[in-house]
């Protein structure tokens, strides 16, 4: 059982963060960063995040596991068809990786290869189902596997998305598909988080609140303009604008969200935008 699954099953408040593989073959910086993390349960390894090409997350996740860090392998439907997805999943299992986060993937047009052809042979719900099949010892075609993986499968959700009911339908399908934990997109509107958690609580699947460090007002405005599903309310943008030290203000905002998560969620997923050293302060 992975550390993440173990701690969630014991109802301990978990903390995850994420590391992107390098664009290149030198893993030393990513591994050093992963080793330096304090107070973290598991670390997501992103998969061509934002549709920008990088080293295979499977490789970095395997190396992190060797270094004693519990990885969460992200896998998107954008870049692989159902053969490649299952094949990579079996490879991950053979290397000892158990946590997976299954995603549709950002659209190609945001990335550094906008002329490429996206795949989307499966969607995230179907990929969750495929993982559930693999866990039972069968591939999607109904063929028996030689050795059965035991994945702890997670999914993403955007609690602040509108209309709420439409977003929640998809969330429910992901639960039915086999999602055992959720990591959320960054949520800054507390009322929307409360509404989501009230509806999600009876479902009983752990939710890790996405906490994104707002480094300054410019970052907040950039997120509002460019990152799908993230909205920073104007009052927070103003606070950052007027702060003597915006980074300290950003940490304070993150700390408040972590505190809220401790009350109503089962953990946090911290996106520190290159400031891993501030994670302990965000958790304090």
């Amino acid at each position, binding site marked *: 059982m992975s550390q993440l699954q173990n701690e969630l099953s014991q109802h301990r408040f978990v903390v995850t963060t994420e590391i992107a593989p390098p664009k290149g073959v030198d893993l030393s910086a990513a591994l050093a960063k992963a080793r330096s993390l304090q107070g973290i349960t598991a670390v997501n390894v992103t998969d061509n995040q934002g549709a920008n090409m990088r080293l295979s997350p499977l490789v970095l996740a395997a190396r992190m596991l060797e270094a004693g860090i519990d990885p969460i392998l992200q896998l998107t439907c*954008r870049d692989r068809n159902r053969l490649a997805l299952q094949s990579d999943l079996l490879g991950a299992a053979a290397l000892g990786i158990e946590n997976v986060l299954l995603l549709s*993937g950002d659209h190609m047009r945001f990335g550094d290869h906008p002329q490429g052809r996206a795949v989307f042979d499966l969607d995230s*719900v179907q990929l969750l*189902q495929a993982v559930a099949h693999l866990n039972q010892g069968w591939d999607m075609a109904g063929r028996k596997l030689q050795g059965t993986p035991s994945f702890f499968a997670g999914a993403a959700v955007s609690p602040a998305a509108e209309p709420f009911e*439409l977003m929640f*339908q998809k969330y429910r399908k992901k639960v039915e598909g086999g999602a055992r934990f959720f990591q959320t997109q960054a949520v800054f509107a507390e009322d929307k988080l409360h509404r989501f958690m009230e509806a999600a609580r009876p479902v009983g699947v752990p939710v890790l609140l996405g906490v994104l460090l707002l480094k300054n007002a410019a970052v907040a405005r950039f997120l509002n303009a460019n990152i799908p*599903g993230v909205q920073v309310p104007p009052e927070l943008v103003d606070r950052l604008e007027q702060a003597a030290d915006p980074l300290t203000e950003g940490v304070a905002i993150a700390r408040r969200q972590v505190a809220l998560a401790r009350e109503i969620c089962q953990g946090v997923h911290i996106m520190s935008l290159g400031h891993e050293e501030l994670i302990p302060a965000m958790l304090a």
Partner: protein
Amino acid sequence: MIISQQKNREELLHNLEGKKRLFLVGCGACATACKSGGEEEVFQLQEWLASVGREVTGSVIIDEACHIMRAARDLRHHRDAVAEADALVVLACGAGVQSISTNTDKRVIAGLDSLFLGNIRRLGQYEEKCSLCGECILNETAGICPVTTCAKGLLNGPCGGMEEGRCEADREVDCAWHSIYERLKKQGRQGVFARPVPPKNWGKLRKPGRLKLG
């Protein structure tokens, strides 16, 4: 209807290299409606070719250039002009181009890029609604195709990029899943939201497609 547009003249000129005499083919159906390969466009092409020192041996607008036998018949009617030409320039969709190349051993130069199967909003405004995927789920999606109108072709609801009912990939465009949701709600049905939709059977899309009736 197949939506097409003309390649730019520079690219066309590159393809015409070494070809002095040309026979022109247009299409009376889709390319005419798209103003990419009707009578007017064939005439304009002829004028432009003259301006770049080419000779046009003749031209024809085929009723539906995709009709292989009809293309054969029309080319036969212009046998001499075709014989005189070094190449044929075809202003029709890719299907039309291949009707022509099926019926002649001469070099065939495509003058258009074929874009999609389009619905007509009004003449000159076309929208892709169907991708001919071979497995319709329109009955469960209130007549809105997510395979085509969702930027990712998702089958189980919107992606995390939906914002206020708009698409992640283009904020000017409605999220297909939002539209499906709204219309199903008006109809008082759950439709596609009632079940997890299994992975699509792309095997139903026989490639290359073929259908022979009777």
